[in-house]
């Protein structure tokens, strides 16, 4: 259920706290401090006010706040002792259903991180694939205290921005979604390639998991973005285009079996809120791609 910003601006403190108090993990004081800054001209301003409250809080309070976050894929998550938002965020990348090996690896990293920094590792999981969470985890373990404290607050910013954008509607919504799209052009015919099956795979290590399937329409595009209305998780991907079938259906000479059959485009996403347009221009003997927007 979403809440209009105008309604929020008229709320009493208890109502306001009830509505957005859980946005910052187990820290109702953030909402209380932000409430004093009403009215908010935009949803972005609401989020900024809440982040401002965190940033201007005394260091001890900030630490206490960071410590209130659950371990990633930790026992708390498995036992269900975290907020509903955290739970669904962690399940979005499969952190709630890790194999024993991966669970043990996360556990070791969590312990090492906590021992070094005194709070749990915080990352906006919806902006990452499982692989990039592990990469981030290992990289951030090497930070010094100040750098890592700032990095943790930045992740809080991303997490709560997503939560606010999901809860509140109105003017000036923060940009929290990215878009991955494609376009298949048959440069042999000089026309959009219609009816081409396109699959999107996400890599976890060397294993690729299919996360979306689409068929190109009369314009050579897919009816919906391959990923849209959510952040594009940072990570490695592969688009696979059934080019051989396309030219076979057109009756074009292309070798038997075809020189090109399934064409894979392997790329990485680094900007979760970015637009990634990855088109394929192809003939039976060649293809090209580029990052468009």
């Amino acid at each position: 259920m979403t809440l209009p910003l105008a309604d929020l601006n008229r709320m009493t403190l208890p109502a306001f706290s009830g509505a957005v108090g859980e946005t910052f993990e187990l820290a109702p004081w953030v909402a209380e401090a932000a409430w004093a800054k009403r009215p908010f001209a935009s949803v972005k301003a609401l989020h900024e006010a809440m982040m401002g409250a965190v940033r201007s809080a005394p260091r001890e309070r900030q630490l206490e706040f960071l410590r209130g976050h659950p371990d990633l894929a930790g026992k708390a998550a498995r036992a269900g002792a975290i907020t509903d938002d955290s739970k669904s965020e962690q399940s979005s990348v499969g952190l709630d259903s890790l194999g024993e090996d991966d669970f043990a690896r996360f556990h070791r990293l969590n312990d090492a991180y906590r021992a070094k920094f005194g709070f749990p590792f915080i990352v906006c999981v919806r902006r990452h694939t499982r692989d990039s969470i592990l990469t981030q985890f290992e990289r951030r373990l090497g930070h010094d205290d100040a750098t890592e404290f700032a990095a943790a607050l930045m992740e809080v910013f991303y997490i709560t921005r997503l939560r606010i954008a999901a809860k509140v509607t109105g003017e000036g919504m923060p940009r929290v979604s990215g878009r991955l799209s494609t376009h298949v052009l048959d440069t042999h015919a000089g026309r959009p390639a219609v009816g081409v099956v396109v699959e999107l795979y996400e890599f976890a290590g060397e294993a690729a998991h299919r996360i979306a399937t689409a068929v190109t329409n009369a314009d050579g595009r897919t009816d919906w973005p391959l990923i849209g209305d959510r952040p594009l998780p940072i990570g490695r991907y592969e688009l696979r285009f059934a080019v051989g079938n396309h030219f076979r259906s057109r009756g074009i000479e292309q070798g038997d079996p075809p020189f090109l059959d399934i064409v894979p485009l392997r790329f990485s996403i680094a900007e979760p809120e970015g637009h990634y347009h990855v088109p394929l221009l192809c003939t039976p003997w060649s293809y090209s791609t580029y990052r468009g927007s």
Partner: protein
Amino acid sequence: MVLSVSGRRRFCRGALAGGVLAAVLSPWGMALAQPAPVKATLTLAEVNRMDEAAFVAAFGDTYELSPWVAKAAFTKRPFLTVTALHQALADAFRTAPREQQLAFFHKLSDIGDRTVKAENITAASKLEQSVSGVDSLTEADHERLKKLNKAYRDKFNMSFTIANRRNTKDTIFTQFERRLGNDLAAELASAIQEEFFVTRLRIAEQVSGEGVPRVYGDLTVHALNSVVGQPANGMVIELFEMSGEKGRKVAQATSNVDGRADVLVGRPLPIGRYELRFAVADYFRTQGSTLGNPPFLDIVPVRLYFENPEGSYHVPMVCSPWSYAVYR
């Protein structure tokens, strides 16, 4: 695995008739270097001067264990080209009585048969089978091959013949299953055609001179940096043979100052599915280019199919950190 062998493609008795073995093997049986070229041991002029005994000694085993083929071909001397020499042997086999042809295929031992005694396998034959990987199958594949061998013998009373060096493990299985559906006449023709390919490779590697038949293909690449419009020097390119989603690395090369690299040359390109992998991000890092984190393009895979083992496949890769084009 990269190697050059004098064309044996199966187990057989008898000494290696000619050709120099040169194999470069890693502990994993993976290609780490290009093969040393096979040095032909005979010239066509020498062959044309041979008496019958010398000729049969040289080519009596080209068609395995069957000096009668060489004896019949000997009468066709002189040979103007190496191709004509091979053609004479192939004609001798083709015009032989059908019973003699069937007997030839009957006495060959089965492909991938681990029970063949060491003295019954030439070194060349072992290498030959290792090219396609049929000597190092998983237990499941080995069982599958055994079943196919039995079904084939039951149906045709022959041993399945295929030019190993022109095929990958996957296409050997595909061909095996397809050819099991043949009738005897069609299958005998297929077997003779495969034997033609096997012996053509053997002759081409054994005899030098005019008109050597084309028995090798080549896969070459050309890497171009479209940011600066220059050849991309020092890009690493790997070639994987694909079986399902699994890849087996078969070659690696680095582009030269002209952006070019010979990935697979000096041998037949085994029929099958492949993936070329261009290390694009590593290359642009050496150029000081700004890349995403992680880079938008890192390893760029190009999946392709070789259908002609003696063909020329030239695959240029024109790339920037954000785009690429590839074509045959």
